[in-house]
């Protein structure tokens, strides 16, 4: 049995005000896959991600992580398997120092202090933030906060990495650095993003959500070649596929 398989069957989520955020969503992501979930604002991407580690409960349907159904009893084990990086790092960094924040997850897992310190050091080094260990989170820049937020999750050694808008709010250099970092993570990766160029580079597979329904699920290259589908889902091709803006020549 692999811990890295994520399977969603007929997932439906209706918010308290009656908004149907997800409807009959089904997919299966296997070991080592890197999958992007894209869609317009309000398509249901963030809602879908929050189902993957039980942050919110489905109205109907099932979620399986490594063949284990997500239930109240399996929640602690599943949260150890699925590492979730949220869109706003300020929500994720709440401890007094960066070190304490990265140590929060491993300590909750019951790891001894020496091992926790080692995990923290490794995770911070991996994201290039080892020098920030003693700093309070409110002294960090946006890019630094994002990198530390990723380290908080990496320190828990998750089998599946789930990230909501990983490159939002980053400058081009920090974005490029982050993409390099994500390329190094060889377990299962699931991203939501409006950064379609990042999707093109990092994710061989893409799922398009539109108004809570899966409109397409397939190879990223094929999906970005389908202009009608993209337009219908309020999306467009990544800039890398749109041709030169000066000479107007297409890259195709």
């Amino acid at each position: 049995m692999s811990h890295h398989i994520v399977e969603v069957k007929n997932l439906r989520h209706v918010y308290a005000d009656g908004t149907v955020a997800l409807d009959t969503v089904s997919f299966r992501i296997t070991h080592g896959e890197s999958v992007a979930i894209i869609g317009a604002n309000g398509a249901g991407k963030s809602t879908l991600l929050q189902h993957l580690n039980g942050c919110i409960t489905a109205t109907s349907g099932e979620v399986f992580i490594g063949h284990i159904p997500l239930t109240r009893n399996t929640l602690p084990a599943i949260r150890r398997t699925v590492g979730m990086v949220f869109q706003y790092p300020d929500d994720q960094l709440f401890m007094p120092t960066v070190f304490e924040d990265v140590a929060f997850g491993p300590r909750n897992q019951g790891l001894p202090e020496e091992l926790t310190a080692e995990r923290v050091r490794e995770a911070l080094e991996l994201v290039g933030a080892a020098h920030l260990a003693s700093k309070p989170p409110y002294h960090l820049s946006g890019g630094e906060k994002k990198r530390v937020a990723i380290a908080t999750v990496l320190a828990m050694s998750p089998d599946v990495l789930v990230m909501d808008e990983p490159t939002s709010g980053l400058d081009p250099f920090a974005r490029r650095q982050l993409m390099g970092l994500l390329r190094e993570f060889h377990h299962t990766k699931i991203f939501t993003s409006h950064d379609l160029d990042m999707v093109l580079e990092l994710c061989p597979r893409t799922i398009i959500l539109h108004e809570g329904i899966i409109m397409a699920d397939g190879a990223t290259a094929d999906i970005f070649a389908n202009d009608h589908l993209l337009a219908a889902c309020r999306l467009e091709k990544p800039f890398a596929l749109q041709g030169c803006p000066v000479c107007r020549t297409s890259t195709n």
Partner: protein
Amino acid sequence: MNAITTAVIDLKQLELFAQGDTQVHGRDARVKVLVTLFFILSVISYHRYEINGLLPFTLFPIIMVCRAELPIPYLARKMLLICPFILLIGAFNPLLDRSTLWQVGSIEISGGCISLLSLLLRSFLTIGAALILVATTGFTTICQALERLGMPEVFTVQLLFLHRYLFVLAEEAERASRARELRSCGSTGRGIGSFGSLTGHLLLRTWQRAERIHTTMLSRGFTGQFHGQRRERFSHADLTFLISWSVTFLLMRTMEPATLLGSFITGAFP
């Protein structure tokens, strides 16, 4: 610059002082908390007309500021900020209490004036001591020290969260306030009316943020307990610091050195 921005920068500055490397900074946080507590208790235990007895207590903040190499102008500015509040509390003392307590030549000084002066002195001493504690220890370390001294964990967590998200809330408030100002075109806009809605929105946003933070905590295996790192180091120097200051405060409180010095001088030079 926006008042909120200035306040946040000031608060961050206070935290930065705590990263200093002097002997005072190096003392165990628990010891510093206890000494400050003894100091405050000693100062507030005097009756309302006391001034002589309070004067020797100014030694503690002076020594601490010098040894911790803290910038005096910064601390003085912070202390002056609280002046209006203290004056508001004691403003009616001179009017209500007119009995003559001191007589300097032909000038009669009423009990109200003395009690106002005493109130000011006590406020400066206690708030000064608290500021020095934060500037030499850091808010987070103080919270951890309080927990190790027996304060329930739930209060520590509340204080830590309050401190952490004060900055986030202040930044949000600043953005909302700037947006209001820009659309008020230099005038007061809709005036006080718009502030009701603005603060309401801030409250709701804070609520949503609290929910998001809870979600991120649950995602990282939070089960209701913080597993902090315990650092047990209590050196001889810490113990000496605690005992020497506590004994000094006790002597100052019971012996009244200012009066003793006065009697000595008047006795020596009659």
